[in-house]
């Protein structure tokens, strides 16, 4: 347990010491928030309503989808996992610690976005702070577990970037981060349902920003995020490889199971 705690503390420190991680955890999302909020609040009157959850989702995706998979793939390819293994580092630590480390960094960045959104740009503050914090936690875990899964299954750094971008770019465009989801055509909304960020923003809008009660179909985004987190972590354990090569290609198809909660959500 002492080893795990020490590893977690090291991982958090590495997220600040490493220039790339520092960029993806803090500089890029905070810089994007400061710039985009400045002009979007002037050209899109609805932006202030979704500014805080939208920019938090953007920060979460930057830390988890753009940064986590690359770190995991590089560590595996460089033989760092092998060095860890022979010194008794358990595989669960290499799956859980990046998720928790990401949670800490995104909490700091999201705290700054929330304060900056309210005080600098007059963004709408959450009506239910309890739900706001709970949803931050759930969405962060869902996205970071997806980032870890991509890192585990990607055959190379390049493949990892491509897979991550396949989630990231559509999420920015269709996920409801900057333009309300209601403004999208019906067929694009179905595609948007396949993205974790869409469910994140839906849940934030329903429970944290509108303080709606938890009942019926409104609970779907919440359930999708929780179930996908569980599936991602379980698949991570199954597919994790200590070797410099990733899991065999035929086993990687298992990772497609991670899409199940999103596909099911289209029918609700």
């Amino acid at each position, binding site marked *: 347990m002492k080893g795990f705690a*020490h*590893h977690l503390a090291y991982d958090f420190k590495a997220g600040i010491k490493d220039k790339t991680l520092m960029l993806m955890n803090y500089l890029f999302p905070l810089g994007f928030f400061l710039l985009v909020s400045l002009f979007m609040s002037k050209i899109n009157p609805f932006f202030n309503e979704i500014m805080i959850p939208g920019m938090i989702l953007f920060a979460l995706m930057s830390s988890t989808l753009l940064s986590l998979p690359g770190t995991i793939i590089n560590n595996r390819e460089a*033989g*760092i996992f*092998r060095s860890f293994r*022979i*010194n*008794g580092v358990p595989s669960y630590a290499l799956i859980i610690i990046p998720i928790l480390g990401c949670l800490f960094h995104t909490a700091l960045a999201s705290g700054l976005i929330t304060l900056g959104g309210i005080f600098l740009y007059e963004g709408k503050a959450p009506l239910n702070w309890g739900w706001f914090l709970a949803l931050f936690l759930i969405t962060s875990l869902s996205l970071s577990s997806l980032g870890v899964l991509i890192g585990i299954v990607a055959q190379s750094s390049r493949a990892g970037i491509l897979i991550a971008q396949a989630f990231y770019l559509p999420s920015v465009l269709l996920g409801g981060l900057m333009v309300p989801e209601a403004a999208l055509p019906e067929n694009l909304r179905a595609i948007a349902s396949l993205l974790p960020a869409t469910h994140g923003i839906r849940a934030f809008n329903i429970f944290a920003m509108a303080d709606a009660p938890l009942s019926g179909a409104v609970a779907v985004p919440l359930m999708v995020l929780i179930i996908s987190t569980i599936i991602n972590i379980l698949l991570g354990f199954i597919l994790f490889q200590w070797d410099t090569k990733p899991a065999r290609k035929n086993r990687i198809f298992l990772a497609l199971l991670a899409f199940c909660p999103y596909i099911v959500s289209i029918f609700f």
Partner: protein
Amino acid sequence: MQNEIALEVRNLKKNYGTTRAVDDLSFQVKRGEIFGLLGPNGAGKTTTLECVEGLRSQDEGTISVLGIDPGSHKRKLWDKIGVQLQTSALPATMTSKEAIAFFCHYHGKKPNLEILHRLGLSNKLSDQYGNLSVGQKRRLALALAVAHEPEVLFLDEPTAGLDVESRIELHLILKEFKEEGKTIILATHDMAEAEKLCSTLAIIINGKLAVLGTPAQVTAAGDKRTKITVATAKGSLVNEKPQFPGAEFLSLVQNYVHYNSEDSGKTLLALLRFLEENGDELLDLRVERPSLEERFMEITRERRNTK
């Protein structure tokens, strides 16, 4: 203690698909000795080590390290052994000090920074792994392997890529570890290193044990002929081309005459008598037994020919 067995491998077999990497390999390593594992590239050294270290599971055979089966008690084993892998790395931003603390905590031990001082990394405690030189990375890898005070050390080509000075320093450190009672299993390509450090050698070729014994035994088992190299002032050996008992003329290179002798004593006596009788003067005389490297090459050639 010397007769206690630290490692026992019996009839080890390991396949990768249809390729047999290790084929019925058996050997024992006594406690407190430095055991050398030699072999050409792809001979099965690293696979053997990885099976013994619990990083790979064998297809057949049994392994016991300090009485522990690596296949079923990995965690227990990894607290008792130290491993320097052939290729390993650490996160680029991790400092030497952090690395020691990181792994010691996982082994349930207090961080032992003394080892960094001992391995000449005192002024590199706060340097990030990505900024260390090749030699410093190798030393740090060794420090990490011994920081939790293991009883058995597995070193896979620990001096590969090191300069001569670093290599000599590392040899001295390994000798110190041996004196402290640690058992060391050393996989290497460097024959001089193996001859200098190891009390027992195993040469593996095509996954099979080709030779096992002390460096002297391994060397003596091969070509028994002694190489004699002579240079004289007047070049009488070149001009007269005399025959000496038990000797065979090999070559003439820049006034140096090379012979192979099956009875070096008789050959040398006859050679010196010849020089005296011809009024010639000895400038240089070298008498060399076949080295471990030559023996290794001989075994490799034999095995290739019989394959």
